[in-house]
């Protein structure tokens, strides 16, 4: 049995309907109507110990609901979750001492005082012994370069530095599993890299299992080999990024600078746009080899410059969302 085993979980939310109009608020106060939203339906997956998994999907797809269930905050309506031989919402106290959670948009640090004080409080909350605390803290300080920022009130820290402290705070009790909910949101390139490198590092050295939700695909590319794509509450794809690319990454943009005019129609040309001296083709490389296309085109016009752009993963995901209509 895997480290994390999720089987057929469902969750429905009951949401009151607001009525419009003058007395809408009043009406709905006395006679409340509800609608039911299937946040997630029949989700199953399993994750091995030490894996990094990217959990992606558009807004409102059910990502945070799943994370909340996995971290024991919510109880699903049906289905079972078994993580390290525990059910999160039943063995709550024991279970949560083994996980760390970072919500990118929410802070667990005390705003007005230095981060080190928050760490000290967490030491008491998790009942960590002095030696162990000392050891872990020093490790974190060194890896995340916290030495100079730890004694500054959190409100005065930059977002990047705050996120570093935030991550350190969630690791102070040495969790086996780390849930990261948009950990790089709003960070600059340098901080992003620092955070990613650190996540990789602790995954490797401490064998921490990482589950990561993000809208930043470069996060996923840098960290996770495996992604789980969720849309409208169901799992649409579960596998490696490589395989996903193979299946969906078949479009290439070819930008050609030329003085000539040309209008060609072939089944492998999905789209062509001409702007001044530049023509942009979108080519389906499943139907034609790129070299053949260039040969064909160079026989007709003179090419001053050529640029081939492969898709970044964002485009891929957009295409994926479109394909699944989510």
């Amino acid at each position, binding site marked *: 049995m895997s480290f994390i085993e999720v089987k057929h979980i469902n969750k429905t*939310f009951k949401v009151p309907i607001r009525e419009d109009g003058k007395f809408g608020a009043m009406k709905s106060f006395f006679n409340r109507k509800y609608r039911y939203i299937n946040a997630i339906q029949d989700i199953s997956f399993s994750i091995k110990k030490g894996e990094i998994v990217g959990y992606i999907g558009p807004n409102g797809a059910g990502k945070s*609901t799943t994370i909340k269930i996995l971290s*024991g905050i919510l109880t699903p309506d049906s289905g079972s979750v078994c993580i390290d031989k525990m059910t999160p919402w039943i063995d709550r106290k*024991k279970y949560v001492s083994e996980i760390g959670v970072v919500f990118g948009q929410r802070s667990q640090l005390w705003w*007005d*005082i230095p981060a080190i004080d928050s760490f000290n*409080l967490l030491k*008491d909350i998790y009942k960590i012994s002095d030696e162990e605390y000392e050891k872990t803290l020093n490790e974190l300080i060194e890896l995340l370069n916290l030495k100079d920022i730890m004694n500054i009130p959190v409100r005065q820290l930059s977002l990047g530095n705050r996120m570093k402290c935030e991550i350190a705070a969630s690791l102070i009790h040495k969790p086996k599993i780390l849930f990261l909910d948009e950990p790089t949101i709003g960070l600059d390139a340098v901080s992003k890299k620092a955070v990613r490198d650190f996540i990789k590092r602790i995954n490797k050295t401490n064998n921490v299992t990482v589950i990561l939700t993000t809208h930043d695909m470069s996060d996923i590319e840098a960290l996770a080999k495996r992604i789980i794509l969720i849309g409208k509450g169901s799992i649409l794809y579960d596998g490696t990024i490589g395989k996903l690319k193979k299946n969906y990454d078949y479009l290439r943009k070819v930008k050609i600078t030329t003085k000539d005019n040309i209008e060609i129609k072939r089944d492998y040309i999905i789209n062509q746009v001409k702007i001044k001296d530049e023509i942009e083709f979108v080519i389906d490389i499943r139907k034609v080899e790129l070299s053949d296309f260039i040969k064909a085109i160079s026989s007709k016009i003179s090419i001053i410059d050529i640029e081939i752009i492969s898709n970044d993963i964002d485009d891929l995901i957009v295409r994926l969302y479109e394909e699944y209509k989510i």
Partner: protein
Amino acid sequence: MSLYLKYLSMHLKSELQYKMSFILSFISQFFTFFGYYFTILCLFNKFSNIKGFTVYEVLLTFSIVTFGCSFCEVFFRGMDQFDKLIVEGNFDRLLLRPRNIILQVFGEEINYVKLSRVLQSLVILVIALLNLNVEWNIYKVLTLLLMMLGSITLFLSLFTIAATYCFITVKGLEIRHVLTDGGKHLAQYPIGIFRKGFVLVLTYIVPFGFVNYYPLLYILGRVEKKVYIFSPITTILYLIVSLLLFYKGVKKYSSVGS
């Protein structure tokens, strides 16, 4: 308990980041609320007593209720502001920690500024005690202590019930004020001066009567029964029930969600 003390010191640290603002609000709170007492004094300037209760007797009940309320507002502020915790989504974070939920809720917010009101109510209490015509003995001192403790327990229960209500409606709405503020304002006077309906409500539904009326009668020597001494203890039952309800709310929260 040691964790709660840790929370206390953390909040003190945060508070002292803004020393000047803290001191000023402390002082202003201290004086603003003397207005309440002032209205009582004005009232008694016109009438020498209300249904047989003199000004110092009223001040005694008044200060007992204010004491309990402000004490809870200082140390159990997190429960008082529970709707904020839910609305801002920070309650989730508490569920992610391997500690007792209620303890964490208490620790979430502590309002040192309101200590000025605790202090103030104690000042009034002392003034009232010095001017009361009571022959003190050990039983009556015990009664007084129980009244103060009972007042704390009662307000804590009321805060907890109001907080539990947040699990149903998310935003605390005004029901809490019906219980706490409304009840508080009535119970700042000896409830014997009200009509029978109010007395029943303030005895059996929101048991302020057990905290500051029945024991008061004993202290003033209007009744001799020793059972009146221990009437504030009934608030413990009230607290237990409210805590159970709260835990039920937590259960429901995790099955219903935000």
